């Protein structure tokens, strides 16, 4: 470009110069006036590195600004942009168009979550169930009152739970779970994996307390170890492993 780009141009996404394009089908639904979901189709140019989120933002910029989508970090860290992409729950910012190997890309709101509008879903229940399992260290003393001023851990102790602390609360696991598909009261893989994260932490003393919370008719026993949660998790959390290890404690297989 000969001229210095204007501020408006600069602040936008990189203009796509590619000759390749895909058909992006976006689910549109406003629970306040629509009786059913409908799809709008857009031709969107893309590069090898273009993500599905960038394609959606391209649509918002050039074709239809009213498409509702939630995002923030654009780097698989905030957990906002989960949606069903070509049939499976994925993060839009962490899924490249080129990796989907399809000329048509369909984006829909995540299943098993109430729809706010279009691609944005409500996370209240996810946060409630997350909160329910007490996602913090439980113990009587505090770091301030102990002599050492910190609770020491060996690298091996850290290894026990660090994988599970990667959870970004994106909800993809809850969307893939077959129990979640029919049971509105199920605590869900996200919260159960977090229960394991704290139970397995050597600094935590709330194991009995937490196991009691998940030992419920809509708690851990509703998990059938289908493993879909682990297959869709974008952070390698492996909720299915955490849940079975947790159940191992409860059944007395592990201590």
């Amino acid at each position, binding site marked *: 470009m000969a001229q210095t780009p204007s501020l408006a141009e600069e602040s936008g996404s990189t203009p796509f110069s590619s000759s390749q394009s895909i058909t992006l089908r976006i689910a549109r639904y406003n629970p306040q006036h629509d009786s059913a979901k409908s799809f709008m189709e857009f031709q969107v140019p893309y590069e090898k590195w273009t993500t599905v989120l960038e394609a959606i933002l391209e649509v918002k910029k050039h074709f239809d600004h009213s498409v509702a989508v939630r995002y923030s970090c654009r780097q698989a860290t905030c957990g906002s942009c989960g949606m069903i992409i070509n049939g499976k729950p994925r993060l839009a910012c962490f899924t490249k168009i080129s990796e989907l190997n399809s000329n048509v890309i369909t984006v829909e709101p995540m299943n098993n979550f109430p729809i706010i509008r279009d691609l944005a879903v409500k996370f209240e229940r996810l946060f409630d169930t997350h909160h329910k399992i007490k996602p913090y260290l439980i113990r009587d003393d505090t770091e301030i009152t102990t002599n050492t001023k910190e609770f020491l851990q060996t690298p091996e102790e850290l*290894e026990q*739970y660090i994988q599970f602390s990667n959870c970004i609360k994106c909800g993809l696991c809850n969307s893939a779970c077959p129990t979640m598909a*029919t049971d509105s009261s199920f605590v869900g893989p996200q919260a159960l994996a977090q229960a394991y994260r704290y139970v397995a932490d050597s600094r935590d003393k709330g194991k009995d307390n937490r196991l009691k919370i998940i030992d419920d008719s809509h708690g851990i026993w509703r998990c059938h*170890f*289908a493993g879909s949660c682990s297959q869709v998790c974008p*952070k390698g959390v492996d909720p299915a492993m955490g849940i079975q290890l947790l159940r*191992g404690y409860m*059944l007395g297989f*592990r201590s």
Partner: protein
Amino acid sequence: MTNQDENKEGIGGMINPRRYGIERVAYLLMRLSGLGLLAYFIGHIYETSSILKGQIGWNAFLAITQTNAGHAILAIVIAMCVFHTVNGIRVMLGHGGVGVGKPARPDYPYIPASQNIRHKMGIYSAIILAAIAMMYGLAVMFGE
């Protein structure tokens, strides 16, 4: 909240075996075989109770299992029984935290350790053993 509100996938989503690999196929087969065995079990009690009607009643009922349809149903029952038992042992071990991998710092592309080859082999073994048992059953029943 109603079903529509939560946009739940429902039973169709729950039983869909196409999206999440062999584990979800096993999940579906486990449910179907469990329910199938339950139905067979109830039918079996009913059938064997016909002995209360004496030998004639018993023989009349037994004749049903000698028909082609009877043989086919029994073959399916054999397959369900073998799959449900073998996969049931795998699932019970998994539920106890056996063979689901060890927690470790994950590296991209994040292959989940719980979806490992041991469990996949367990599922394939259950399916193959069920098929072999069913074929053996068919050979015995139709080979008379």
